[in-house]
């Protein structure tokens, strides 16, 4: 656990991790953003929180009010 480790051990752990990370394969931001955008555009039309849910399908709508007295 981190709190049981000495400062030196923590630094060593961070150093090992950084060494691994410097060599990870990366792709340019622009290309990735384009992909993300096309992903979202494809799905956004069906997003229920953006376009809403028709009342007949909305189980949360509740009653209009009024009560039935028998």
């Amino acid at each position: 656990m981190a709190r049981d480790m000495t400062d030196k051990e923590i630094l060593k752990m961070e150093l090992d991790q950084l060494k691994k990370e410097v060599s990870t394969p990366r792709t340019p931001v622009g290309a990735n953003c384009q992909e993300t955008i096309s992903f979202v555009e494809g799905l956004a039309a069906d997003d229920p929180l953006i376009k809403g849910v028709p009342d007949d399908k909305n189980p949360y709508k509740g009653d209009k009010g009024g009560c039935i007295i028998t």
Partner: protein
Amino acid sequence: MCDQTFMAITFGPCDNCSTTSPLMNIYIKNEPTNYCSFCVEMMACQGLLKGETLASLKNESESLKKKLEEERAKLHDVELHQVAEKIEVVSALSIKTRRVLKGHGNKVLCMDWCKDKRRLVSSSQDGKVIVWDGFTLNKEHAVPMPCTWVMACAYAPSGCAIACGGLDNKCSVYPLSLDKNENLAAKKKSVAMHTNYLSGCTFTNSDMQILTSSGDGTCALWDVESGQLLQSFHGHTADVLSLDLAPSETGNTFVSGGCDKKANVWDMRSGQNVQSFETHESDINCVKYYPSGDAFASASDDATCRLYDLRADREVAVYQKDSIIFGVSSLDFSLSGRLLFGGYNDYTINIWDVLKGNRVSMLFGHENRVSTVKVSPDGTSVCSASWDNTLRVSRALGMPWLLVLYSLT
């Protein structure tokens, strides 16, 4: 603590060399030690040697971090909101609170949706875990936990069990039975054991494995049946506050965020930390994968939410505003990934446009800080849990309303 008085030995046997001489009272790592002046000198010199290696390690670490930054910056050709300029603005949202779930006696700390899109489980500081039916407001089960501050709860994918834990340092699984009279607490199964509080838990793709994050700085993967530790993940240097599994199509990884301001992406099979991001200025309270699986967002006490792209290996967007100064405790994405819901400590939920980077709307209603925000599995509702003891389920208004108005004009 200047009003405390304590004894200090100023003459006697030295702790190190046992010679009787005048002593210097010093504190090493909060432990009081009494050394004679000679031993103190010796120790200071040793300290220097250690200090040298500490400093050289630090220097190496700094230079590697700089190199990493340079590598990442090379690929930073454009910003997300610049690429997104040509997209249409999100139409005005009409999300309203449809249900308020009352019943907890104290702050609601966590909640989770069931895959059937109507049930929810929530856990609270009062030590109770309640399973609700979101449509009817019925409380289907109420499980008392032996500890207060149940900080994490999760619904199993099958809908037949819940997992929860908190200050008891454990994660326990309770199978849900249809028989209302059965005592759920008796069926409890302790699965995970940590050495500090449990901050987050989630089932993997099946009911058989649980992933947990803890205040002891580690995350762990457990087998539910045997309670065995399958894999542990070390790398954070402070409490881990949140974790999220990658959406199933994209493989066996998960992301965790913690008090060391780092968000780490881990490989579940090898236990290795594959990517790490440190751009936040304060504790990361929540991390969430993007629906596409290629990015994730984090929410922090520095009042910002940030989006990190995993393929570009860098932060691509920051969701912040000068007028927002309170920390974000939780966040979630809408189904398409266009909207980001952030629950803030100023009692509101801000809705951000993920692509353009601006705030689209706000949700009010809670009377204390929002602790958890989660979008339902089908994307139709968003539930927020708060320290005001309630949960609120919100939905967007239906379209037919607008059609009726049109025909009248």
